[in-house]
């Protein structure tokens, strides 16, 4: 319970802080523009929509600064590596970087809407300021700028135009339209449905952000929102002169007020993150140029490809992932895959399942028709960026760890279990970790094959070293047909499992989590147990519930700490 509160509360604190900064910026800027004397005359024309537009602009600057940071993966890896205090807590926050990116994107969308609506009103009011029936101070202010000595206040100079033309004649208008369109296109192609059905569309369209940032930087260059200059404020007292607009031309007590626009500030906010992200892409390009040697290609059933590769200075931790690019398939796409090898091995490997255009093309390229093995030198070149992410090293920090994987979600745990095996080989005892429970829930029996070898060698290794009690694994098969059922039933009494060949028998159907958690809590009554899961959301929710349910209220009792690995 305690660790759940802690880990959830850090997320809540981060979100609330972000919200607080947004609110502070909004309200502070709003009040400034509503009260500032230099903008008094501007407010005569525009009303309070000036303040709405400027306040939302301030929030937009802040959010556009933040948006690039969560996707600067090398930067995050760097921060993760160097954060000394409260390592566990902050590292888990860094794993939620994509959620934060989405949150900031929603913030940008909300503020952009406010900004757009406010400026629509502003432009309409500027336009009406030049109307023939405009009178009094409004008319006088709008006419300013017609003679050579005057600086204008109203950017719309003539009535004989419509607001659309006016918009398209200003830099701010055109860039505003362009960046709004860019934002909308990015958002419509980033919905979860599109991401899952066509990752490439999401990836390519997202690069419109370049247009977004360029447009944002030059958006304010026209300086059309103007306030009185400081010099003019000293000469022309607003409170006194506002009613004497007829006498301004006479320039006795009240000289004509002079106006100037604020210099654009968006680039100041976004320059840092843009440079950082540019460095990220440069690093990725440099890594792209680095040679990746493919040492082994293994084709597994159910369309899974295993690639063993080597790269200079490549260091990984269990649970991390890499980006892979295959220029002969697509010169621009990078796709993420979890590493399935242990850090102790001299190569790194990934298991790739065919589940989309790019992965299917990769399988076709690497696995020739008819299973004839291709020459290693004739294989297409691959580029690798990473490794990134990873929260699985936490497994070693708990006395007891429960690792649960669904389907292809077993890949980070493959790396972890191999790492456990190597550590077991090297030293007599693993410091800290005394028991690992491993659950794998899988629909397809053939998917076991590539993982079965690993479990088999782990099983023999553990029993050889007398550490069979260290790892307890349970495999659940949730889909079978009648033939398989008959085959299983016939071989029920044999000592090794008919599907996996392991001593531990496979279970059929989904696990009963209540029973499992009850048993684990009973076996380890006063430990903190780390629960690690990689798989679909629905199961994640179930497991979180189980963790909360079976953690005891007593601080000395058993506690389940839930960690989810996500992509």
């Amino acid at each position: 319970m305690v660790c759940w509160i802690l880990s959830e509360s850090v997320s809540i604190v981060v979100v609330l802080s972000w919200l607080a900064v947004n609110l502070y910026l909004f309200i502070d800027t709003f009040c400034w523009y509503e009260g500032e004397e230099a903008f008094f005359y501007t407010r005569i024309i525009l009303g309070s929509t000036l303040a709405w537009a400027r306040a939302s602009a301030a929030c937009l600057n802040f959010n556009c600064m933040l948006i690039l940071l969560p996707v600067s993966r090398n930067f995050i890896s760097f921060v993760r590596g160097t954060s000394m205090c409260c390592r566990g807590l902050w590292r888990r926050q860094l794993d939620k970087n994509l959620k934060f990116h989405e949150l900031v994107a929603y913030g940008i969308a909300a503020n952009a809407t406010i900004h757009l609506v406010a400026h629509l009103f502003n432009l309409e009011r500027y336009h009406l300021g030049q109307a023939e029936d405009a009178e009094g101070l409004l008319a006088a202010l709008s006419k300013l700028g017609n003679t050579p000595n005057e600086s204008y206040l109203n950017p719309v100079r003539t009535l004989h135009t419509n607001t659309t033309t006016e918009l398209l004649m200003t830099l701010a208008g055109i860039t505003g339209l362009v960046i709004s369109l860019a934002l909308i296109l990015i958002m419509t192609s980033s919905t979860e449905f599109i991401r899952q059905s066509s990752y490439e569309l999401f990836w390519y369209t997202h690069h419109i952000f370049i247009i977004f940032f360029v447009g944002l930087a030059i958006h304010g260059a026209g300086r059309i929102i103007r306030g009185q200059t400081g010099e003019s404020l000293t000469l022309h007292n607003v409170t006194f002169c506002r009613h004497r607009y007829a006498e301004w031309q006479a320039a006795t007590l009240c000289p004509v007020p002079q106006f100037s626009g604020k210099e654009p500030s968006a680039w100041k906010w976004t320059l840092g993150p843009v440079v950082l992200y540019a460095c990220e892409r440069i690093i990725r390009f440099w890594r792209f140029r680095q040679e990746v040697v493919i040492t082994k290609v293994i084709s597994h059933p159910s369309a899974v490809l295993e690639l063993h590769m080597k790269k200079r200075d490549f260091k990984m931790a269990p649970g991390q992932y890499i980006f892979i690019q295959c220029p002969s398939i697509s010169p621009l796409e990078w796709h993420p895959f979890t590493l399935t090898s242990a850090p102790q091995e001299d190569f790194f490997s990934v298991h790739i399942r065919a589940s989309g255009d790019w992965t299917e093309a990769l399988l076709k390229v690497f696995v020739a028709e008819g299973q004839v093995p291709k020459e290693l030198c004739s294989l297409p070149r691959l580029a690798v960026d990473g490794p990134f992410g990873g929260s699985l090293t936490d497994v070693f920090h708990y006395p007891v760890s429960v690792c649960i994987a669904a389907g292809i979600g077993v890949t980070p745990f493959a790396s972890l279990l191999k790492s456990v095996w190597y550590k077991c080989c090297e030293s007599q005892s693993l410091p800290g970790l005394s028991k690992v429970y491993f659950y794998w829930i899988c629909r397809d029996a053939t998917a076991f094959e590539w993982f079965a070898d690993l479990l088999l060698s782990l099983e023999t290794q553990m029993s050889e070293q007398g550490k069979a009690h260290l790892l307890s694994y349970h495999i659940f098969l949730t889909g079978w047909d009648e033939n398989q059922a008959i085959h299983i039933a016939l071989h029920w009494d044999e000592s090794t499992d008919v599907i996996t060949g392991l001593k531990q028998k496979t279970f059929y159907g989904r696990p009963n989590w209540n029973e499992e958690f009850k048993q684990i809590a009973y076996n380890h009554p006063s430990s903190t147990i780390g629960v690690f899961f990689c798989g679909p959301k629905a199961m994640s929710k179930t497991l979180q519930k189980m963790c909360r349910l079976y953690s005891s209220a007593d601080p000395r009792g058993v506690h389940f700490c839930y960690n989810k690995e996500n992509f």
Partner: protein
Amino acid sequence: MGQIEWAMWANEQALASGLILITGGIVATAGRFTQWYFGTYSIAAGVFICLLEYPRGKRKKGSTMERCGQKYMTSVVKLFGPLTRNYYVRAVLHLLLSVPAGFLLATILGTACLAIASTIYLLAAIRGEQWIPIEPKPKERPQVGGTIKQPPTNPPPRPPAEVRKKPSVEEEGAGGPQVNPIPVTDEVV
């Protein structure tokens, strides 16, 4: 990008355009901008587009996530048959709907977004995509008794299944129900 279904993105884009048209229309009408009647048109067009685009079409491969509560609109949209199925019609419709909104600044963003959605629908239509309604799966009534095999007609000891399946015409005497050599009485009182 070979397998992407463009209609999926066009649908999201058109739905977003509908919402933007409604927003722009409300702003223009409420603020009584110049030529604000285009704003009222924009609200109407936006509502129509949102209703038309709300039900997601079925993907050719894989499963499609339905939008919440879309089955009501699916039945209405399905009624128009080829008009709503064909994406050429949708592309032209969206293009035509977007034009009047282009005359007013408040809705010009909606025009641009809808025009883009129209282009993507055109692309989808050229690639032969169609709007297929997501039908609710007919509830399979559990077949009571369908899989229950007939219980054995004769008491044990029974010959194995292969022998039992042989047509009893061949052996009149030995086939059929067991004839007990000693009469057996039922113990049940």
